[in-house]
């Protein structure tokens, strides 16, 4: 398969075949991660810039590690210390990056659509490292890779995603991709965090976790953004934990060797109990490792050739 995209903004524009191609490319990348010597000459001379307007040590380090293993040069723009804090617009930042002839930009931003804006302005590739409540495609891809490793083909598999669906960009990208791969997806959460409009994604929604667990092949807990607790979207953390928190005991209802996932960072004792997070069913650490492999695959696919691709 020939890769024809300049950017990765979300999973909606990718075909099932393209998603599978990324996952297939990530498999040999994971083998490299297990080596004592992890440095490759593949992207020698290429430059990758991390433009993170939101804090995210995990995602940024994952991208940076991936690019460095492939031999690319990486730079970090710490927005707080950059000209952005002096009032530089995103368009000007884009023009500066263009003038520096960078090959790839990874952007994270609090506003939805910023990655798309940057991609339109730059001839370099752009990877969306999370934009507002819109999308987080690389997190979704690493989730698929992890599920596929444990469950095999995702066609027909039941995936339950529980938590703050309303604010989650991870959910949107996951649903878009999982549907393409033929999985059955159920979104679960309290009514205030799972409005009925979420049905637009074309998946089942439910407010009752216990009812949805039987038959689930994977259950993904979303981070409960504790800062939003103050805004009254749910009565108390204790109640949330009782109704939607995952525990070893509750997971028995699936009747299967279900895998447990979490995009991190976890609130232990809130959306997931510690014994479950550290159990053999948990693939949470594996997700982090796979994140580097999947990002290596994407960086390779986006800038591994001459870059004369069309989006």
């Amino acid at each position: 398969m020939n890769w024809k995209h300049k950017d990765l903004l979300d999973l909606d524009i990718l075909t099932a075949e393209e998603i599978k191609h990324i996952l297939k490319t990530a498999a040999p990348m994971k083998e490299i991660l297990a080596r004592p010597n992890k440095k490759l000459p593949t992207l020698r001379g290429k430059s990758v810039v991390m433009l993170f307007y939101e804090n995210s040590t995990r995602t940024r380090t994952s991208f940076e590690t991936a690019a460095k293993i492939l031999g690319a040069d990486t730079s970090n723009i710490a927005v707080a210390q950059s000209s952005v804090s002096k009032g530089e617009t995103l368009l000007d930042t884009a023009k500066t990056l263009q003038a520096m002839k960078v090959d790839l930009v990874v952007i994270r931003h609090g506003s939805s659509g910023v990655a798309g804006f940057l991609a339109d302005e730059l001839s370099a590739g752009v990877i969306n490292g999370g934009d507002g409540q819109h999308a987080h495609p690389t997190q979704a891809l690493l989730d698929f890779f992890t599920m596929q490793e444990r469950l095999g083909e995702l066609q027909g598999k039941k995936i339950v995603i529980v938590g703050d669906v309303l604010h989650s960009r991870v959910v949107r990208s996951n649903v878009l991709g999982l549907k393409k791969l033929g999985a059955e997806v159920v979104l679960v959460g309290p009514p205030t965090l799972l409005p009925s409009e979420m049905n637009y994604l074309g998946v089942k929604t439910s407010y009752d976790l216990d009812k949805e667990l039987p038959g689930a092949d994977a259950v993904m807990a979303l981070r409960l953004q504790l800062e939003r607790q103050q805004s009254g979207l749910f009565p108390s953390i204790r109640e949330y934990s009782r109704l939607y928190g995952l525990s070893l005991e509750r997971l028995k209802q699936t009747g299967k060797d279900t895998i447990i996932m979490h995009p991190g960072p976890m609130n232990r004792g809130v959306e997931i109990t510690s014994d479950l997070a550290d159990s053999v069913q948990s693939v949470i650490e594996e997700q982090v490792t796979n994140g580097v492999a999947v990002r290596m695959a994407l960086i390779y696919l986006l800038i591994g050739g001459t870059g004369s691709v069309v989006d």
Partner: protein
Amino acid sequence: MEGTPKNRIMDADGIRRAISRISHEILEKNQGTKDLVLIGIRTRGVPLAERIKERIAEFEGVSIPLGLLDITLYRDDLSTIDIQPVLHETKVPFSLDGKIVILVDDVLFTGRTVRAALDALLDLGRPSKIQLAVLVDRGHRELPIRADYVGKNVPTSSREIVSVCLEETDGSEEVFLQEKK
């Protein structure tokens, strides 16, 4: 097929005999199987390495370790090509330190694949020796690399293509010389 079939330079029997001879030569040169490991370069180097492993097991009663090497990430032309090659897994589930590595490929041409394979191997460990076995040496080297074991030397013009077909990858057993289109 990239060109028009021109003439067949090896048939199934010829390939089988070449593999047997190479296997004998490997044993002779290294005085047995001590510290020997085989590494097949994907794609067609892999079935060839498997066959050498089988022959050596028949001759000596010893099963020597076999690894698979994908050299895509070590290519020196990646930044000049439009469409990057598809990656496959490298599987070398044993240590290369102190081993005599027999690198196996189907055709030796410019030497650039072997150069990439040497880089990849040295990232995996520190073998005591690396030797190269190829089914066909067609000349036109661009780097100072030569094979230790050659199934058949085939003088070619640069306008020609050597196509190796193996049962495992192509469903037939033959080596063709073709004219580029």
